[in-house]
């Protein structure tokens, strides 16, 4: 029996990287490969689904390949990897820029900076590196990984769409009145929720006063969250609703109620919520940064990096008030989702990892060359 195990820094319910690892584990097991998930830290609710690193010698022995999911630095994981003899595969989810976190959480910024160093140290002993976007893959190539494969995240939009909405949340959103601008993403500096607020300021003060902004996402950084709430008060935006982290059912309610989805993020390795919005026929307005244009693939209004809040506010107004534009964006979103089904993304990732485990030449379907 072949064995390919995965390593993440932290295993937690609802965490995007944990979900990606669990999805990959299911694929590996379907392919007849024994696979377990190990982590440096673990949410107690993950007991039985994942194991802590000290359990590796008893549960992970004999692996042909260790798949390391990288999104932040962690000394324990780095030390563990330094001691292991197994060949590695790296799945790179990208790391937020450390400088964004410097003013808010210097210790977290240090972990991000360390993470980049630790990633570089893995390049020499990695059989294959996988970027979940071409943007990520380009970073891997720059660091020195070879070969590098692009395997987009498997976003199972159909499963999300099939989820029953939360009745309480749906009732709340229905009671808001007016078009709903939705923004989904953790409250972190590089996600630029503050920029979404300024665009909404223009929309609500100059064009559609009855519109609402619903912000969904965990408040991961107390200082930044406080500053965002202070900004809402300073701008007098009484039609902004910051709902925090929601259950999947409540999130589905938000997507169903949304008139337009907006992200102003300046650093994304992939940006899953863009695809989720498309799955609910919600037109997308985004900004031209990092992997966002790649994930959007022309199926949304992509503001230039130098466009300001006024252009953004007018873009929101146009999507809400111009039916032709709205319909064409919805249709483009559907085509975008159909072009890359989840199964195709899964098989690309599996092929790369199985090839690396068998020491076969790694297929490089996206043509990323060092």
């Amino acid at each position, binding site marked *: 029996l072949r064995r390919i195990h995965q390593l993440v820094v932290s295993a937690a319910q609802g965490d995007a990287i944990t979900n990606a690892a669990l999805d990959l584990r299911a694929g590996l097991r379907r392919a007849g490969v024994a696979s377990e998930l190990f982590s440096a830290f673990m949410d107690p609710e993950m007991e039985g689904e994942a194991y802590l690193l000290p359990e590796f010698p008893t549960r992970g022995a004999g692996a042909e390949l260790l798949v390391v999911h990288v999104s932040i630095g962690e000394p324990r994981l780095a030390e563990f990897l330094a001691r292991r003899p197994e060949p590695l595969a790296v799945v790179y989810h990208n790391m937020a820029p450390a400088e964004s976190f410097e003013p808010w959480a210097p210790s977290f910024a240090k972990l991000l900076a360390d993470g980049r160093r630790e990633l570089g140290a893995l390049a020499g002993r990695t059989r294959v590196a996988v970027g979940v976007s071409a943007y990520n893959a380009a970073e891997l190539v720059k660091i020195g990984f070879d070969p590098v494969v692009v395997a987009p995240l498997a976003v199972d939009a159909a499963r999300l769409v099939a989820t029953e909405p939360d*009745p309480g949340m749906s*009732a709340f959103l229905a009671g808001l009145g007016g078009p709903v601008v939705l923004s989904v993403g953790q409250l972190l500096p590089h996600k630029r929720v503050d920029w979404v607020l300024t665009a909404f300021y223009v929309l609500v003060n100059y064009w559609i006063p009855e519109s609402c902004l619903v912000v969904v996402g965990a408040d991961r950084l107390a200082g930044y969250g406080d500053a965002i709430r202070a900004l809402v008060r300073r701008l007098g935006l009484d039609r902004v609703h910051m709902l925090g982290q929601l259950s999947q059912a409540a999130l589905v309610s938000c997507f169903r109620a949304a008139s337009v989805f907006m992200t102003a993020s300046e650093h994304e390795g992939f940006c899953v919520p863009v695809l989720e919005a498309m799955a609910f026929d919600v037109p997308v307005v985004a900004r031209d940064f990092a992997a966002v244009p790649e994930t959007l693939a022309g199926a949304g209004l992509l503001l230039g990096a130098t466009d300001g*809040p006024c252009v953004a506010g007018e873009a929101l107004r146009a999507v809400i008030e111009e039916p032709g534009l709205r319909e064409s964006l919805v249709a483009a979103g559907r085509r975008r989702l159909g072009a890359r089904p989840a199964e195709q993304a899964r098989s690309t990732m599996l092929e790369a990892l199985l090839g690396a485990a068998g020491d076969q030449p790694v297929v490089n379907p996206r043509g990323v060359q060092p």
Partner: protein
Amino acid sequence: MSAGPDDPDTDLDGILARLRAQVAERRSAGVYPPGLEEDLEAELGRIIARRPSREPPIRVFTEELTRPPGVDPARVAAATASGIPGGAVLHQAVARVVGHQVAAILSQVQDISNMIWDDLMVLAEALTKLDRRESDNRDLWALVDSLLDRMAAFERLPPESGGAGVADILRRLERLEAAEAARTARPWFSTRLTSAGATFEAARLVEGLDGCAPVLVLGPGSAAAADLLNAAAGSAAAGSAAAAGYAAAGSAAAGYAAAGSAAAGSAAAAVSAAAGYAAAAGSGHDALACLGSTPDRSLGAVVAADLVERLAPQQLLDLVRLAVDKLRVGGYLVADATNPRCLWGRAQGFGGRPDRVLVDPSWLALCATEAGFGSVEIVWGPLPPGAGAPGGVGAEDAVRQSLFQPISYKLSARR
């Protein structure tokens, strides 16, 4: 770039160009006032600039202090070459003399520098401990946030949903209450020893209370203080009934957590009945119950020994107000506490114990004045070790004065 992949009719680039043109037009027409966008984008920066720093500059300062010096004076060599016969020897002799002088001066500078360095390290340590924004209440914030989230979700539920969600809210409320209760430390051991020097010695605490009987001594430090008072009373009037009264309460007083209201009550009864001295251990509710159970205007003094920092803010106010009621005219309220203005004490961790709330002397004095005490005096405790060392430099003396205030203080308020 932004055209729909298979939809030649959707010219997203064209739409964006139109939007940009509209914005430019409206900007020139004054619909969008000048500076609007810059102002909007700068607003977060203004908010950030006003927020308190989470990374105290004191850490940067400490790192600077601990950085090793860049130049070793011992490695600096003087040129001693000379073209005159015997000149080199002369140069070397002069260099040796000058070298000794320079070394002596450097040594003096180094001594002063070391003293300042030590003081600054104490200051840095104290300030680091004062900066507790990162940890204070953080555990409760998460629980409060979670509770508010649930309440918000509950409010969003349609009316026909009945009481769904109430049980969840109640469960979270119970967790919050339990977490809040767990924040109050009630050690089963005496913490007085861990703060040796941070409170008044018993003898200084009860100084001047001779002849004030009956005296009620409250708090974990009551045993020693009452012992002294009883001994003094015993020498003056051997075999007083009060001594027996104290002995009964004293056994409970030895272990502060063991003393309950009953023991406190009996101590109060003994002291008022025997007009002698008594100790009642315990803090907070027990001490207040003990004081409250004595008849009005019946006491000559109330001594709060190592007590006031263990009281909740309202309990402290109650203690002072009760003392006014229970003391006869001319009676004393005496209380000792760590001096929160002594940064050296902070650096030693005197202010960091979880069972204490630091009480500023000016606040305690104000409470006493407002409660009706006619004469209020603060008696300062000992200075920290090394505080009296001669500085010799004006700036250093100033630093020392700010660092090394008295470790403890005693309030003496006369009714």
